[in-house]
């Protein structure tokens, strides 16, 4: 592979949005066959730059050169023609369609007037075998795992003959195994001669995968380096502009009373299958119980069951010794449970409410916010001002809509709200998903602080690093059951991986 | 009188038309007179009594030079302001056409004792209102006689608009007429619930014709158009079916291949007479006239002879005489 040829060259790209410059004269070069990582904090302008390259946005200034020729990319179809493919941060898949339909969409093989489904399936199978991306062409997107969906996204680009593939935060939603597979896939693609751009917040992945790295901060390129000549610590500093600590300082602590006791919970899932098959667990004051497991093994249902958002068919939930089984979410919340939900847009916030209104989402009925039927907006704003300051939620003011906050700041707002309730039990589901390292550092600090204040914390995460860093104990969930626990002190990825794949705990687990 | 209700949806709004009285050989006696007319929601071109009334006023203009003008009501709420538009402009006479005007017109009459008003199909007891109603049951009896004598299948249909007292009068008279000449004939009744839905009229007619009915009398306003449409389609297919029209001579509109006869209501004559009386200086304020067979205000049009055999028409004449003389009392419900 002749790496001296450039696949993409961006010269002085500038993109302005009302009130801010998302990309500020960015110069960027991608060599043929190279894997090039793009790093930066939330809102640094990475996605914007890639959307420009893929023709979704038009730059205000600057030039795009593809394979040595200057081009204007006025739309996605032009980008596809140029051999550019993009795997988006939020998947662009049509849920009710099959895998094959999603892949061939817009470029369907036909027989007469009809789509030739046989040929379509065959074509999908061929490329999926060639690149080692196993999928079932006839499965529906809504029925397959996130990892599988991502393969479909990659296949979509390959089907269109992409030579330059952009990945926008591809690992944010994947499990450990899936990430490993993806890294393998990307390496294969590069070996085939494809040029790759990958955006990620995970420095370890960058170091493992990329040939070179470009760091962007506030729309400007800070530096481009090769991975040979840098390390994680340096990259982090380049990104954030200050020293970042990856260590979570956590002192050993004796857990107290049992706060949450879950006994033999059973619940039906959406498709009629059992989502929970008898889950039992205890959490004590001052400890963090981590739940590991591949997405879709009942973690969400467990949380719904504990918080009362869905009814269980059997078993019991006790909080501080009080039976809370099948109580309403309101009762559970009042009884002392805080909940940082998995999907901040779906559950965590009313995006069209102001930041301030969101701060009282589950306490508005308390006398604190008006003793009559009327809401005391002054009390609400006072509280919001305080929380926004304390938790450093950045926005143009407490009256701006939650929608206009970046993901990290949205998450901070939720954490502020839930911690302010001073709950006995805090449930945190994927609390750092999609956040940059600065934000992650902050969230981790707050969670450990809460633990140290004696709160019981239930943490669900797909990131082993996070689980190890925060948890006192780690339980593994598989097909609606807990497979056992491992000690967070002793890191054993092998063991954990096996349990996540459905093997019972061995002697050193407690299962 | 089969079109009377408030349909469609707006408040406010009216349509207008004016006859300025300088045309043709008018005698000019009415030059200083202004006569207004407010329609119900059917509008002035309803091919029914609103239209008849307006035609009468057009004739008045032609004959006397009086200025006549109409306003259409889009809903019940418009009727009162529309009447007031004329009254407050100083019109010499204001007509309300249709019995929905009952409330609005009596209120306006009470509030404006100096104004003169007249109403069709309703009785309003006020010194400044002339009320005109019709004995629809009497005329319906006569078309019932025709139907009874001419049915081949012994099945006759009646399609009504809404099931309300006025229409019940048509039904009762019609049934009595049929029973008088053909006691064993069956009269099927279908109220469509609407005066403005030809599709329902068409369905009702289709159902009846399919069931062996060969003559249908409709008192359903615009819904009745559907009855004619269905009959026309069947006639084109060679079936021997008939429709009896209502209010006006409907053979003029729908043709005499399907229109057996019609139950005419003399709205035009009545409006013409009352308006001319006004110009002549003897307005019939405070009176109620129920116009029936004796006044020739209801009954069959002359064109009936085209489809109705002479012997049947003779029978009709006989019954008419008996009703006028009081020998037969036609039921109203």
């Amino acid at each position, binding site marked *: 592979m002749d790496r001296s040829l450039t696949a993409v060259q961006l010269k002085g790209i500038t993109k302005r949005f009302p009130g801010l410059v998302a990309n500020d004269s960015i110069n960027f070069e991608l060599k043929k066959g190279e894997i090039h990582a793009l790093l930066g904090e939330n809102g640094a302008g990475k996605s914007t730059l890639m959307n420009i390259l893929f023709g979704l946005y038009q730059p205000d200034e600057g030039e795009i050169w593809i394979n040595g020729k200057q081009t204007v990319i006025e739309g996605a179809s032009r980008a596809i023609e140029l051999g550019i493919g993009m795997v988006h941060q939020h998947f662009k898949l049509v849920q009710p369609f099959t895998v094959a339909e999603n892949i061939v969409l817009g470029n369907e093989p036909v027989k007469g007037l009809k789509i030739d489904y046989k040929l379509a399936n065959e074509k999908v199978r061929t490329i999926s075998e060639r690149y080692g991306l196993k999928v079932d062409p006839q499965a529906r997107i809504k029925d397959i795992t996130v990892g599988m969906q991502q393969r479909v996204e990659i296949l979509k680009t390959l089907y269109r003959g992409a030579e330059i593939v952009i990945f926008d935060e591809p690992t944010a939603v994947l499990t450990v195994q899936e990430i490993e597979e993806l890294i393998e896939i990307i390496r294969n693609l590069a070996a085939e001669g494809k040029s790759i751009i990958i955006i990620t917040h995970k420095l370890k992945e960058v170091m493992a995968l990329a040939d070179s790295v470009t760091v962007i901060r506030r729309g400007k390129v800070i530096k481009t380096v090769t991975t040979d000549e840098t390390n994680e610590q340096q990259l982090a500093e380049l990104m954030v502009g200050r020293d970042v600590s990856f260590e979570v300082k956590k002192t050993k602590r004796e857990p107290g009373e049992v706060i949450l006791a879950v006994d033999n919970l059973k619940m039906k899932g959406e498709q009629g299958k059992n989502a929970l098959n008898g889950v039992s667990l205890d959490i004590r004051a001052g400890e963090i119980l981590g739940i590991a497991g591949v997405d879709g093994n009942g973690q969400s249902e467990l949380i719904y069951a504990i918080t009362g958002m869905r009814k269980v068919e059997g078993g019991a939930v006790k909080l501080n010794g009080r039976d809370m089984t099948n109580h*309403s979410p309101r009762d559970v919340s009042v009884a002392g449970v805080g909940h940082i939900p998995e999907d901040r847009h779906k559950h965590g916030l009313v995006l069209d409410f102001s930041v301030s209104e969101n701060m009282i989402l589950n306490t508005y009925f308390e006398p604190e916010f008006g003793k009559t039927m009327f809401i005391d907006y002054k009390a609400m704003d006072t509280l919001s001002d305080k929380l926004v300051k304390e938790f450093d939620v950045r926005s143009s003011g407490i009256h701006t809509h939650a929608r206009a906050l970046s993901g990290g700041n949205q998450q901070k707002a939720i954490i502020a709200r839930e911690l302010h309730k001073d709950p006995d039990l805090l449930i945190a589901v994927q609390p750092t998903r999609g956040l940059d390292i600065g934000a992650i550092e902050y969230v981790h600090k707050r969670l450990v602080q809460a633990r140290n204040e004696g709160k019981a914390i239930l943490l669900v995460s797909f990131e082993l690093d996070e689980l190890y860093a925060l948890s006192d104990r780690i339980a593994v969930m598989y097909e609606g059951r807990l497979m056992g626990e491992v000690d967070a002190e002793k890191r054993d990825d092998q063991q954990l991986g096996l349990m996540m794949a459905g093997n019972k705990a061995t002697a050193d687990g407690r299962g | 009188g089969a079109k009377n209700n408030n349909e469609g949806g707006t408040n406010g709004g009216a349509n*207008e038309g004016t006859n300025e009285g300088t045309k043709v050989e008018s005698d000019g006696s009415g030059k200083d007179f202004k006569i207004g007319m407010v329609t119900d929601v059917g509008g002035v071109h309803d091919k029914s009594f609103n239209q008849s009334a307006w035609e009468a006023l057009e004739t008045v203009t032609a004959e006397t030079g009086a200025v006549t003008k109409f306003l259409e009501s889009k809903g019940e709420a418009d009727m009162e302001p529309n009447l007031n538009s004329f009254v407050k402009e100083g019109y010499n006479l204001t007509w309300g056409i249709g019995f929905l005007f009952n409330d609005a017109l009596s209120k306006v009459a009470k509030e404006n004792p100096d104004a003169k008003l007249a109403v069709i199909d309703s009785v309003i007891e006020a010194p400044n209102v002339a009320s005109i109603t019709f004995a629809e049951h009497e005329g319906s009896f006569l078309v019932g006689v025709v139907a009874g004598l001419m049915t081949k299948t012994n099945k006759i249909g009646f399609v009504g608009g809404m099931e309300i007292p006025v229409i019940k009068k048509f039904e009762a008279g019609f049934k009595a007429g049929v029973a008088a000449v053909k006691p064993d004939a069956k009269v099927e009744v279908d109220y469509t619930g609407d005066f403005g839905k030809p599709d329902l009229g068409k369905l009702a007619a289709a159902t009846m014709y399919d069931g062996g009915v060969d003559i249908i009398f409709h008192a359903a306003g615009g819904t009745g158009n559907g009855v004619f449409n269905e009959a026309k389609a069947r006639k084109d297919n060679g079936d021997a079916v008939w429709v009896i029209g209502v209010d006006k001579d409907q053979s003029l509109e729908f043709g005499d291949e399907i229109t057996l006869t019609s139950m005419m209501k003399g709205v035009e004559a009545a409006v013409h007479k009352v308006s001319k009386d006004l110009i002549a200086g003897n307005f019939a304020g405070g009176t109620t006239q129920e116009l029936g067979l004796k006044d020739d205000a209801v009954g069959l049009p002359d064109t009936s002879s085209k489809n109705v055999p002479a012997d049947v028409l003779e029978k009709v004449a006989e019954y008419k005489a008996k009703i006028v003389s009081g020998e037969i009392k036609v039921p109203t419900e």
Partner: protein
Amino acid sequence: MEMLRKIFSKSSILIPLVAIILGLIVGAIAMLAGGYNPILAYSSLLDKLFSTPYNLGEAIRAITPLIFTGLAVSFAFRTGLFNIGVEGQFVMGMTGATIIGVLLDLPWYIHAPLAIITGAVFGGLWAGIAGYLKAKRGVNEVISSIMLNWIALFLSNFIVAKFLVEKGQQKSMTVHESAMVKIDWLIKLTDNARMHWGTIIAIVCVIVFYIVLWRTKQGYELRAVGHNPDAALYAGMNVNVTMVKSMFISGVFAGLGGVFEILGVFGNQTVMAASPGYGFDGIAVALLGGNTPIGVLLGAVLFGGLSYGSAGMSFGAGVPPEVVRIVIGAVIFFVASHGLVKWFLKPFLNKRASKRKEAA
């Protein structure tokens, strides 16, 4: 006062104004094409509206039900529901008021309030059915309320014809004077226009709408459910009950509209061939008013005023009154397509901007 700020913020006042002007221009073009004189027509319209106290009073009478139905549609919209069934709820409100007004004979201070409340509750419950079906059975409220509109019409007709009918008529007996809510001195003042307390209550409802939605905890819940039912569930709100409540309140507004048509205007209820149409016009009013209470009030004034004035247009200029529907449709169209309006305004705004630059 976020609301007030919104109302007076530049583009939200500018766009409706421009939209109204563009709508009137569209109407004028239609009239020119039809061979009518638009200037004469519009001046006759204004003349009709403002010439006499009577017409002004009657215009207010015509505007009043639109305020209620506009509020009803907006309220549901605000909570994420499309209440296309305001029409039926309006009719049920009429019926409730008529039943009490006709069948009972009570002192006025009990009779009128009871009739009003009954009608309002009828409307509320009728809407509640759609809310319940949506919450419990997942039935799309748009379809169920379309069905309920028809059912309301026929049910009311049945009730009137069977239990309340005045002999020999196709309408109910007259409501007892003790239940009527006319304002006699205003009626005298306006030369017998049908003025009634419903107008005052409509304005009170505008304020109530604002207070309920933006000042109470209940309103906070309603809005949360409207924007994001999942988050509302998470926050411990009872989403289903809130949905039914929202429909109920919306139906109460609609029902009140119907109530005052009976108790304020007609004094009896006729057997109707079709429902009066205020509910559908309410959708237009709500949209015109951007689903804010003040907006609805102004929208109703515009819509009702134009509609009432259209009689003058035909009286004075011989223009078919339907042209007013074209104007109203066009106004809402331009309000909705503000992109289009801005596009129209662009040259003008640019000029202003460049002037400012020159000045600087």
